[in-house]
């Protein structure tokens, strides 16, 4: 199928959905479709095979920033409501049922990932000039999608969103040639599995203290180091690797899986197992100067990238924490002890109320950081605080979720033990999904 055909087929499915009709959202759906097709026409004319750069693009294509607003408002736009409803269906109908199996197998099933592809997330992330359907950059929409998918399963969400995070990074900071080289591949059938590789084996998880080295060489750089907890270890063809160049300057490098010296081993962890976490070894990997993201100006945006990824983690945490809340409400209301539902007791009911309060806090902190990012306002403080908060509260909600089910929470018959393992990641992970 041609690129434009694919775009249309995705959008037709979205636009024809019963839900959209019910919600009176046909018009925004048509709006999106027409935008996507305008992008699709450009794509149709371009040959997009391998990592050959599209010709003719001299300036990087960026997404625009939405208009500033001067009103406190928590209501999602019609487009966001539509995307959220589609994502919610994927989360409930496909992620949730597949989650346990995917966790055991340390792999995201292809048919589940195909359902994610139907959401067209990468299409909306890529500007029209590059063949996508993207128009405005919206970290808020990104956070909404991450939260909604993570209600189904956090590991599968990470698998699904990891490439979108790489796309967002390339769109925001990539050079024209980097965009032209890699972005079209994300629009192909099956997308381009890709991941950020920022985490390293040492404790304290400080993304600003990087041990992987990039030594300048004649035609580029030589990379040496080790990255852990890298998503999509099984399949990723492209990695964005952080490395220290001269002193403490941190740069990001586009590293292809097939480059000599790159080796990747599965390295399962406590949770997020569906995302096929792995360990990436860089043994004197030679990369050209063109591999340097944003032509060596990462100093200017590395912190922002970390912040955007933290917003992503907070959003994922919010979705999974909501799953915990929904589950314990139903379970505990149905669980009887000493002759009445255990939720008739304050010790149980108050724990559940606290989950709701901390969860809503997490959501609002995340939304504020995302919305400031979207408006082009500084959001480093907000992302930092959201992360500090989520690190503590996500773990607490995870452990209380198991506690509320007692022994039943500890066995795999119920999903709370998986959420416990997944929510623990929020306090330590960097990278992942850049909104």
């Amino acid at each position, binding site marked *: 199928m041609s690129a434009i055909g694919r775009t249309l087929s995705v959008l037709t499915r979205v636009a024809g959905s019963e839900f959209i009709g019910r919600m009176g959202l046909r018009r925004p759906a048509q709006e999106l479709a027409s935008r996507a097709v305008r992008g699709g026409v450009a794509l149709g004319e371009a040959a997009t095979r391998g990592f050959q750069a599209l010709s003719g693009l001299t300036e990087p294509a960026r997404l625009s920033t939405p208009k500033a607003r001067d*009103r406190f408002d928590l209501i999602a736009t019609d487009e966001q409501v539509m995307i959220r409803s589609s994502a919610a269906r994927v989360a409930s109908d496909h992620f949730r049922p597949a989650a346990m199996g995917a966790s055991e197998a340390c792999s995201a099933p292809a048919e589940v990932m195909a359902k994610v592809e139907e959401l067209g997330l990468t299409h909306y992330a890529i500007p029209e000039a590059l063949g996508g359907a993207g128009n405005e950059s919206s970290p808020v929409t990104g956070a909404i999608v991450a939260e909604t998918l993570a209600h189904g399963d956090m590991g599968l969400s990470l698998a699904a969103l990891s490439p979108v995070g790489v796309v967002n990074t390339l769109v925001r900071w990539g050079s024209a040639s980097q965009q032209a080289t890699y972005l079209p591949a994300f629009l192909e059938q099956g997308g381009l599995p890709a991941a950020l590789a920022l985490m390293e084996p040492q404790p304290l998880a*400080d993304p600003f203290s990087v041990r992987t080295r990039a030594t300048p060489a004649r035609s580029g750089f030589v990379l040496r180091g080790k990255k852990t907890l890298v998503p999509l270890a099984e399949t990723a063809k492209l990695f964005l690797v952080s490395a220290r160049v001269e002193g403490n300057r941190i740069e990001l490098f586009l590293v292809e899986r097939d480059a000599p010296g790159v080796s990747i081993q599965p390295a399962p962890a406590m949770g997020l197992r569906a995302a096929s976490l792995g360990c990436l070894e860089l043994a004197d990997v030679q990369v050209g100067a063109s591999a340097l993201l944003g032509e060596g100006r990462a100093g200017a945006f590395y912190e922002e990238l970390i912040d955007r990824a933290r917003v992503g983690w907070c959003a994922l945490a919010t979705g999974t924490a909501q799953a915990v809340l929904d589950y314990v409400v139903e379970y505990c*209301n149905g669980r009887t002890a000493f002759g009445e539902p255990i939720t*008739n007791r304050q010790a149980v009911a*108050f724990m559940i109320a606290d989950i709701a309060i901390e969860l809503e806090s997490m959501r*609002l902190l995340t939304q504020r950081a*995302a*919305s400031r990012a979207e408006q082009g306002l500084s959001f480093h403080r907000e992302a930092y605080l959201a992360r500090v908060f989520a690190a503590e509260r996500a773990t607490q909600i995870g452990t209380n979720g198991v506690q509320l089910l007692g022994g039943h929470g500890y066995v795999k018959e119920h999903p709370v033990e998986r959420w416990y393992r997944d929510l623990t990641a929020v306090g330590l992970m960097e990278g992942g999904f850049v909104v």
Partner: protein
Amino acid sequence: MPINLEIPKKLEAFAQQAHDVAEHVFRPISRKYDRAEHQYAVELDMLAKVMDGMREGAGHGVNGVGRAKHHGQTNGAAREVRNGSNMAAVLGMTELCWGDVGLALTIPRQGLGNAAIAAVASEEQLERFKGRWAAMAITEPEAGSDSANIKTTAQLDGDHYVINGEKIFVTCGERADAIVVWATLDKSKGRAAIKPFVVEKGTPGLEVVRLDKKLGIRASDTATIRLSDCRVPRENLLGNPDISVERGFAGVMKTFDNTRPIVAAMSLGVARAALERTRELLAHEGILADYNRSFYRAPAAEAELYRMEAELEAARLLTLKAAWMADNALPNSKEASMAKAKAGRVGNAITLRCVELCAGAGYGETELLEKWARDSKILDIFEGTQQIQLLIVARRLLGKSSDQLK
């Protein structure tokens, strides 16, 4: 309009006015009236005049809680999102309590009774009680959190209600022009029969028995009042006199839905004051919380500052959300309780932690930190304790009645 959690400029300007009051009127006299408990802060008369002017200028009260206008249409697309008087009240109160909680509670004509009047009074009553300083009297010696259990009675006798009973913890009970007294029309009919009555000062049978000495908010008078065959005109019953089970206790609850975010805002203000001062004091010791260090590599005191700031920001956003919902006529009972629960406990925890972190400066009376730690405690108690808020939240989440989840 897309999602946005920033304060609109016009409300920011309004909050700045409140902040000026807090900084230039409250702070300089804060310690004075903490020491001189029960002495009326005469500086506030001047302030009340200024605030009436500000209020007319800005179109909303600093403490007055407004009723969102219903827009009378259901088409979501055409709905205009409002940032109105509830949000303004939250922002204004946060700033005032950054200055001094006790003084903020005793600003003339800004009492909790005024909030009750704003929430449930008829148009005629709104007009009649305009400009009156109204205190609020619910709690009784034997009925605290279980306000449905109050024993104060009101019996219709001709054109008057005859009220009998005793009320405690009446904020501004001595200073206010009137007191909104909650009494039951018929004890056997339960909460449905509980109604608010405006009792004007000087009404025969209304007596201030004593003023309490307190842990904090000493600038605010807390009175015990007694009503003995106190006759009030029947048109002073606020809202609907019918004893209908459906509407029932809704009057009290409606008042609290609107005032809980305001009390949450008070907590935000005092906690922010403590946190800001602690940051200043710790900066002298080389502790800079500038978000530049990895959380796990920060010194313990710096990490503590981040944690407190994150908690405070969480409480602030919950409070803004509850107020925003009220401004847009969205039912917000759960959200108002979530905000009050979170802000109450976070505000208290922050002020106490700041005392600890600042050690001598925190615990001694040369700074206001120890005072703020005393003041903040009441905010996790009045207008519904932490535990009552959790009950409200839990009942809503779990779909439980008060008989099931006690």
